């Protein structure tokens, strides 16, 4: 008798990790706005991927699953008692904008800080639309929200960004 072959083997997960870790991390960062929480989310998402035994029928399916799970996991994080009790000594983004510390990579533009300064619900939609190049219909499908909700959130986010960026970027 042969032990059943695990559906998501370590090799498969390794491949998914190498291919999508940056995508998950960036989404987690856009959601949590700090490295430590983004790293925690990254680990949580891939552990769930291993445990869930979900079978991906395409790269598109895999990517959509990872995005949805990142959003779900971050909901848990953002609503946890621990997260609510943390009172930052200074808004990490304000601190980052001043010193550029705490934000990975090189210096960021005002666009970066403007987007991270948006309310959390808008950041996800903006990130998926502008960074991942998903259409409104696809974002609606991935996040299980109505297309009109996504359109409204995108519209509101653009309005806020226009105010923040003072019309500097034409195609917001």
């Amino acid at each position, binding site marked *: 008798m042969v032990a059943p072959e695990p559906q998501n083997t370590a090799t498969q997960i390794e491949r998914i*990790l190498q291919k999508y870790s940056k995508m998950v991390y960036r989404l987690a*960062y856009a959601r949590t706005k700090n490295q430590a929480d983004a*790293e925690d989310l*990254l680990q949580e998402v891939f552990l769930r991927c291993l*445990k869930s035994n979900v079978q991906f029928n395409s790269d598109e*399916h895999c990517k959509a699953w990872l995005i*949805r799970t990142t959003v779900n996991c971050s909901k848990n994080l953002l609503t946890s008692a621990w997260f609510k009790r943390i009172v930052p000594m200074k808004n990490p983004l304000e601190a980052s904008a001043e010193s550029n510390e705490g934000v990975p990579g090189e210096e960021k533009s005002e666009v970066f800080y403007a987007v991270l300064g948006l309310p959390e619900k808008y950041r996800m939609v903006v990130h998926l639309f502008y960074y991942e190049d998903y259409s409104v219909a696809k974002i609606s499908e991935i996040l299980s929200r109505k297309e*009109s909700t996504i359109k409204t959130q995108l519209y*509101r986010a653009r309005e806020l960004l226009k105010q923040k960026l003072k019309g500097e*970027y034409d195609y917001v």
Partner: protein
Amino acid sequence: MFRKRYKEDFDSITPDPDVIDNLSEKLKSHALKKYPRIGKHLIAAAVVVCLLMSVGLMTRSFHEPSFAMVAFADDNSDDKVYIDENSSVVLPFGKISRGEKHSYIDKHGKMVCSYDSGFEHGSISIEGEGISSVTYACKMGEFSYYDSVMKKRMEDEGKIKVCVFTVPVKIIPLSDDMDATFERLWNEGYFDDIKKDYFQDKSTDISDYEVMFAQTGEQLEKGIWRVEISHKFENGYPFRQRSNEVTAAFYEECGTTSFDVTWSPWYALDMVSEDKPIDFADLPSDDITVTVHFTNGKTATKQLKFSFDSNGNLIAEVVKN
């Protein structure tokens, strides 16, 4: 410009390589823990169980074919819930919720108020022997089914993508009318080499195709677009069924996951987003009919009811066998 700047900024947001290495090690050790070596006594016990199950299945095969219905959340397919007869069960997915209220001025200058609404994704499926296909039908919601085997076959036969090439951004600047710019250049002969290479036996009317522009980090640096031209499917891709009735066929390579479909209550989300008080338990229920076609030509049907409780949980019950 905004998209370009945002992409450039986020391209440099990458996880610490040490974190990835540690995570990789952690995943490997979890994978090993999950499937420990099986002792001889456990193998013996499993053989006995298998024998008993085989006897049970042989006995059952003399009677009517049957199947079991299962449901699971998208991010945890291990946590299956069986939808048994004569009982209602809370499904591990489908929880509906209402978010924040929005108000905005629509294009007619009218103030519109609505709530965010959402529900948790998941799938239903069936388990059983000798099944060739399953048809899921509902009255209010929408089923969706993704036929990965058909998609792969179509890709291999060149029925989806026609070609991929790059174009300098300065030729097609980022704007709302990029499609129109592309069409103009296409008709003026700018892409005649592409036509010659990929469209010799095909229509050269660009409106017969889908054109997509994308950029990765490297392409951003080089200032080029990755342009993909695909066949247009007026009614959507045939391998993706989205309707109040879908049929999932059995594929050996997919096993029982061949029958996984998702159910979405768009009708309920519309109601939850309306600017009025709501009790989720008052949302209309949906009648689901699952018809299983067996390889021996027989069929079996189950009728279910999907409804929500006051907390927004999705409840399923078999109403008729």
